[in-house]
Every structure is written in C-alpha cells, then in structure tokens.
C-alpha cells in the first residue's frame, strides 16, 4: 500500500487512473440505486454489452470508440425501452438479442481492424491505467449530465421506480421518464467502461448501490453511500492491483464482490439480532 501511495505521488498516470475511478463512482451513486430498486440490472447488462458494436465501429472507421460506445448505448437503451413500453412481454427477448447482436457486430468490426486484440481486451475489461486526459474530460461531462438530470428529476425518478401506475395517475410522464432513466443508465455504462470494461460494468453499477441499500433506507441515502463505496472500491482495487501488477478492472470487481458478501452477511446478522431483541 505504501508503495502504491508513493507511486501515486510520482506517477501522473496513476493519478489519472485514480481520478477516473472517482469520476466513475459518481455513476455508481447517482444511477446504481435506480437500477437496483427498479430491478433492471439485466437490462443494464444488455446495454453494456451492446456497446461493443459502437466501440468496434469506432475502431474500424477511425473515430473515438468512446463516442461509438455512447451512440450504441443510447440507441440500445431507447430500443429496449421502446420494446418494453410497446409490448410489455417482449422486453426479455429484446435485451438478450441486443446483448448478443451488439457484441457480434463489435467483434466483426474489431476483427477487421489491425491490432484488434489489445483493443478488444481493454474494451472488455477496462484500461484504467491508460485513461488519457481528454477522456477524463469526457467522463466529467457525463458526470455533469447525470448530476443535472438526477438533481432536477430525482423525485420523478423515485415516483416512476416506486409505483408506476400511481405516478401515471398523478400526471407524471412515466414513459418519457422511463426512457430518460434508461438513457442515463446508458451514459453511466459508458462512464464506467474505461474503468472496468463493458463486461464488468454491471457489477460496478449494482454492487455499491445494493450494499448501500442494506444499510440505508432512502434512495438519497443510497446515492450518497453508493458514491462513497464506489470511490473506495475503485481506489482500493487500483491500490491492491498495483504491487502484484494485476489488471485493475477485475481487481476492483472482486473487491466489490467480496465486500458485498461481507455486507450481506452483516446485514443479515443485524436483522436476526434485531429480531431477537424484540423478542
């Protein structure tokens, strides 16, 4: 750990990585709770995987793969949302199809692009150590968009995730807000891809929020706790991976998984103790 701290002071690339993790953790906090309480992690997983299509197209046609990812994420979010709103039952199939089709498109593009193997690995599992300054600004812009949207509309998002029918009765534009929420999930996926890669995104999106949900009792409490947990997990995973030279993305995810397990056990124990005390 001491080695990591002195390296952070000396190495600018580690400082960039740390900053990227912190920027990504805002996504854990702002959007993760909605994904968890609305139980749409499969949907978020579909968006995350379909993103490879956009990244592959970016690599092949020579534009920034992150822009490709952003486009693909937003398109698949809207597609899945539209399928759900139009035919409630088709959602599951649509998610599975987009999941696989997006990846297939991406793999085909990447296979036709020279030097594809390294790109593919960093798309899939992240490359937090190689985040250029330009992408930090891109991540900051995504954070700003998330902050604005959630700051202005968090009551509405709570209404839509809590009780859709009642919200509709009260004149809340439920369908529009649902689509907007999915677009925000898409932005969050793109925000996190640089850190842990598209395969592991789903863990960073849900685990901090799920842990927060075990210890807090409001969406806003979950947001604050999940943001802090996300910051701790990305920084901690980065630090743990540094000395043994492990890939940081998977290390962050394993750390999150381990902490989730501990948190779930502790929360269960606390419930049992509480029940004993009450008699």
């Amino acid at each position: 750990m001491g080695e990591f701290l002195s390296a952070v002071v000396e190495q600018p690339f580690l400082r960039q990585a740390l900053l990227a993790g912190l920027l990504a953790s805002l996504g854990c906090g702002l959007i993760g709770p909605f994904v968890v309480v609305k139980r749409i992690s499969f949907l978020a997983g579909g968006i995350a995987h379909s993103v490879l299509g956009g990244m592959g197209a970016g690599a092949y046609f020579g534009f920034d793969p992150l822009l490709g990812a952003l486009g693909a994420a937003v398109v698949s979010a809207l597609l899945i949302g539209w399928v759900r709103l139009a035919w409630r039952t088709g959602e599951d199939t649509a998610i599975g199809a987009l999941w696989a089709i997006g990846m297939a498109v991406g793999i085909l593009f990447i296979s036709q692009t020279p030097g594809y193997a390294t790109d593919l690995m960093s798309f899939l599992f992240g490359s937090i150590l190689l985040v250029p300054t330009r992408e930090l600004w891109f991540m900051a812009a995504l954070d700003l968009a998330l902050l604005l949207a959630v700051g202005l509309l968090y009551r509405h998002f709570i209404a839509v995730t809590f009780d859709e029918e009642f919200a509709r009765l009260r004149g809340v534009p439920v369908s529009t807000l649902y689509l907007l929420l999915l677009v925000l999930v898409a932005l969050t996926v793109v925000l996190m891809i640089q850190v842990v890669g598209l395969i592991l995104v789903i863990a960073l999106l849900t685990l901090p929020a799920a842990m927060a949900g075990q210890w807090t009792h409001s969406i806003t409490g979950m947001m604050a706790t999940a943001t802090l947990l996300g910051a701790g997990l990305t920084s901690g995973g980065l630090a743990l991976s540094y000395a043994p030279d492990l890939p940081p993305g998977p290390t962050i995810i394993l750390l999150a998984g381990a902490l989730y397990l501990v948190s779930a056990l502790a929360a269960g124990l606390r419930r049992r103790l509480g029940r004993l005390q009450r008699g």
Partner: protein
Amino acid sequence: MSTAAAVDIQQLSFSYAATPVLQGVDLRVASGEFLGIVGPNAGGKSTLLRLILGLLKPSSGRIRVLGEPAWRARRRIGYVPQYPGFSRDFPISVEEVVLMSRFGLGLSSKRRAGEGERPGLRLGRWRRTDRDAAAAALAEVEAADLHGRQIGTLSGGQMQRVLLARALASEPELLILDEPTANIDQRIEGEIFELLAALNRRLTILVVSHDIGFISGYVTRVACLNRTLICHTTDAIDGQTIRALYGEDVRHIHHDHPPPAEAHEAAHG
C-alpha cells in the same frame, strides 16, 4: 364545477378483447355522496374504477368525472388501489410515499386552473407546501406518528391508513377506494370506515367492497355490479334491506346467467 355530478356514466360498455366485462352501465354519483359498489368477483368492479380513473378507455358509452373527461379529472381524484403497485422493501419512508400524490399539482394553484399546463414537471426538491399537505393528510388519518417509518415495517392497517393519506395529500374532490379493507381485521376495518365517514363530510367517496353487510352501515347508497348495474338503490337503506336486496339480485343472476358457482360466491363471499 360543483354543480356537475361527481361521476356521470351513460351506457358504458367495456370488453377485454372479446370478453365483455361491463355492459350498458348507467351511473350518476352526486357530489357529496358516499357510494358503495358491491358485486361478485370478476363482476367488473375494478374495471369500472379504472374506467373512471381514465386508465382504460370505454368500448362505448360516455364517462364524465367532476364535469370533465375521465383522463383529465384524474388529478382531482384521490385513489386507493386494492393492490398497491410497489414492493414493500422499496427504500422509502411513509412521508415520501404520501408525497407521491403531490405530483400533478402544477407549479401553483393558479397554474392548476390554467390551460396547457404540464403537470408533474416541477423540478428539484419537494416544497414546504407539499410537506405540509403530506403531514396534514397523515394527521387526518391519525397516522402522523408513522411519518418517518419505512413502509416495509407497517402493519396491514397502518399501510391502509398511509395509502389513504397518499390519496388525500393531493387535496382531491373525489375519493375512490378499491377494497380498502380486504386484508385487515374487522376492528381496523371499522376504524377505516369511521375515517371515511368523517371524510365524506367534505368529499365524494366511491368505495368498492366485497363486504356488503359491513359497508351498509356507512355508505349513503349501494350499487350492485355484475357486468351491468343490477341494483341501484337511491333511498337511504339499512343493512338488512341491502342484504335482502343483494340476495334477491343474486338469485336473479342465478336465473339469467349460467355459471352458478359465481353467483354462489357472490351470495356468501
């Protein structure tokens, strides 16, 4: 606006795909009434409520609510569903649940009456007035002490009070309840109906119930619904006559409609 009937339904029919659920329903609920709607399971009670709320469109016929088309009157209705559309483990407090009906009230009361408003789009945090209205609604259902509780920790009776407070916090002119006492014991059922009777002093109330014997002591009028409006008593009546009337009508259904199981259920359920 106050001279218009609270609910005015003319020759209303509704079917799901090819299955007729309601046929030729005529119902007029005057402002200030406390109407009980009773009838067998699958007799169309909940469907009628959903039509009045504008959640479903009639196949034919006309519904006006508070002098407006149903979908537009929605915001002036307080609604207590039979099965709330949320899960009890959602991380939310009682106060926040009650606040959920403060959407749709526009930016101010002046804007509320205006044309072309976009309800529900007020941004940012809840206002003082919203929190005050939620507190007042909780106090009115004698549940002010619950305001900070997690909804998951409430008993059945407490939950019912909170759902009633959620309906009241929008300051509605018409209160619609779908089986408000289906899952709670008799004593609490009595308390809830006492509350409704008190609310009826300032609100029109429409309540669906399977328990005709019970509600008869509270409502001003009963409508029996089985596909169509079978009885429609306009006189103030006591429990005994309703029971007799309901029984007669059930026998009547028995003759007209083949499935005796349903009629049997209606007579005893």
